[in-house]
């Protein structure tokens, strides 16, 4: 197998590559040098990373999400019950189609679907939709759908428009790694949802304070319910990030035999964890409950965005693969 080395743009002589050596060397290279050693990567992988997603599932997903958004807006603006139910149904359909789209991509690339920016964004959108739908079913509240779907659509579409990978990701596989990444992205999605709910809370509270009680306000959830939904979402996020981070440590330990290896990402993740634990604690305090807690939640999500983008791109070694 001829391998392509991105560092010197030269072809290396073929070497005997086994699955184990690929895993070990790519993981070790990431930890040591901070730049993936693409000499170990399969050419097929790098060619495959440019392969487009299956259009059928993409179109189905897009149609379902767009239809769901329109239906939720119809429910919020016109108060049509059937429109709300249709929105939920289409969202569920979109989730199924999106799942198959991710699966198709993973099969085509012979790797996990989130190994690059495109995949991560797509998975984020999927998990955001899944978290929202779960919250909707648990709290029996549909009126927030019109606010969440634009974000789901944005991430889904952004995933398609994201630039081609500069580097192909290491073939990091295994259940532990899969759980680590999925739970981490689920945490970000849950935090994102709580941010949206907090924004709605602040908006509705302002309208109530200013006595601008129109059609939409009557259909939105009560402030108390928005507060509880936000806290539920944060709780899901906290559990996910805690377990996901632990899985990350386990994976690193198995890879290197060393559980601790400093990466700025760890510090920021800890900061995110602490920020949301602080939020949950304060949100139960009557003095903080309400607008102040919502503002804190929005600020916390800014840290999450910082972690997902700036830290991953410029500071982290192990998480800079896109």
């Amino acid at each position, binding site marked *: 197998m001829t391998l392509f080395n991105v560092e010197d743009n030269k072809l290396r002589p073929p070497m005997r590559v086994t699955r184990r050596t690929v895993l070990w060397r790519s993981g070790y290279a990431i930890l040591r040098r901070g730049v993936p050693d693409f000499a170990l990567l399969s050419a097929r992988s790098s060619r495959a990373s440019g392969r487009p997603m299956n259009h059928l599932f993409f179109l189905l997903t897009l149609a379902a999400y767009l239809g769901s958004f329109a239906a939720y807006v119809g429910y919020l603006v016109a*108060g*049509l*019950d*059937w429109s709300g139910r249709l929105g939920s149904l289409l969202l569920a359909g979109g989730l199924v189609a999106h799942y198959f789209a991710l699966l198709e991509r993973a099969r085509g690339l012979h790797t996990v679907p989130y190994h690059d920016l495109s995949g991560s964004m797509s998975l984020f959108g999927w998990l955001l939709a899944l978290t929202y739908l779960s919250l909707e079913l648990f709290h029996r509240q549909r009126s927030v759908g019109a606010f969440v779907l634009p974000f789901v659509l944005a991430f889904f579409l952004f995933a398609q428009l994201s630039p081609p990978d500069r580097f192909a990701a290491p073939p990091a596989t295994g259940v532990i790694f899969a759980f680590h990444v999925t739970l981490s992205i689920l945490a970000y999605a849950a935090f994102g949802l709580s941010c949206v709910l907090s924004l709605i809370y602040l908006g*509705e509270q302002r309208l*109530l*304070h200013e*006595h601008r*009680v*129109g*059609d939409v*306000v*009557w259909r*939105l*959830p*009560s*402030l*108390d*319910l928005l507060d509880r939904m936000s806290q539920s979402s944060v709780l899901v996020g906290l559990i996910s990030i805690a377990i996901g981070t632990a899985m990350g440590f386990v994976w690193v330990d198995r890879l290197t035999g060393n559980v601790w290896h400093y990466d700025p990402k760890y510090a920021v993740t800890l900061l995110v964890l602490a920020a949301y634990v602080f939020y949950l604690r304060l949100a139960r*305090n*009557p*003095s903080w*409950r*309400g*607008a*102040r807690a919502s503002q804190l939640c929005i600020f916390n999500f800014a840290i999450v965005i910082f972690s997902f983008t700036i830290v991953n791109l410029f500071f982290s070694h192990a998480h800079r693969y896109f």
Partner: protein
Amino acid sequence: MEIVLVGLNHRSAPVEVREKVSFTNDQARQAAEELRARGILHETLVLSTCNRSEVYGVPPETTRESAAALSNYLSSFHSVELELLSPSLYHHYDRYAVRHLFRVASGLDSMMLGEAEILGQVREAYRIAYEQGATGPVLNRLFQGALEVGKRVRSETELGTRPMSVASAGVKLAERIFGKLHERAALVLGAGAISEQVISQLRDRNIARLFVMNRSLERADNLARQFAGKVIAWDDWESALTLPDVIVSSVSAEEPVLTRAHLEKAMAARGNRPLFVMDLGVPRNIDPTASSLYNFYLYNIDDLTQIVQQNRTSREGEVPRAEVIVDEHVGKFLTWQASVEIMGVVEALRDKLKSERAEFIRERSERITGLTPQQREQVESLIDDLLEKMLLDPARRLQGEKDLRRKIQQVEAIRGLFLPDRKR
């Protein structure tokens, strides 16, 4: 099969006339019994609320005669002069009676557009008549349809969702902030009529705890007992303001009863828990500058009146959608009615043809000799088969006719041509 409706409501009669013609449940049962016993109606149902008294029925005779008989009966039952009653009475027949009932059940004919109570009242009136055996297949179908249309209008439109009074608007706003009120507490300042209305609304929403404060302890106590609340002494503000999530103020006072300083202290003492205040007093009882406090929501009577006005406009905007649903159900009922009518007409035609066949054979057989009884039987059977064959296609076409108007016209044509003596 026809339907007749005779009644009066808040539009056709002043309250002095309405109160004379209202029925209690027992009176409704008695009237239903008497109307059937006297042969004025086969099926009867009396619907009586504070804003209307109506009698629905299926008459044995033509509707016009029944309507007149019903008016006389109402006059004699309530001992009200017919000349006094007649100008207030309205009469509706068939599809117009059906449409009227469906609009009543939907809240479209109510004094407060879209009110929810009327559906329960229609349900109760139907239950009483049904248990008494005063209804039959027509009124059963009619009132089941009315309950269905009432539910549909309320679930598919927003006709009944927005509050239409200051009291209900305030309570709904409290629900916007706190969600369900079953774990919340309310403090009512003042023991007047408005306070009573708000407390009634709060109790309907299952508010957990209720406190009443009034300068007159006796009036506070009376109000608290009525609604299972507790009384707090008028000057015990420190503890009073820490208890509730909702405060309703409606006291007569020239100066605000609660100033910003009071409320700031109270909010600090209660840990800044959200507090919703309805200031229904004129002049205002609550210092308006307090509205800027954290987690403090203040609505005065003007704010609530404006919300009610917006809701009224919004409800009126829902009326066309509700009317479409009503029309749809009127169509369904008439289709059912026509189907029953078709079967009745076809059966009546079959019976008439059979009796004429028997007469025809009896006359002709005297002239035809030499037929054995067996052969006579075969001839009769052949004629029967021919009649059935002749009726089969028209009956199928009638059943299959989708256009209701044409269907009704065809039934009328058959009745007119072949059954001129048959009563409808």
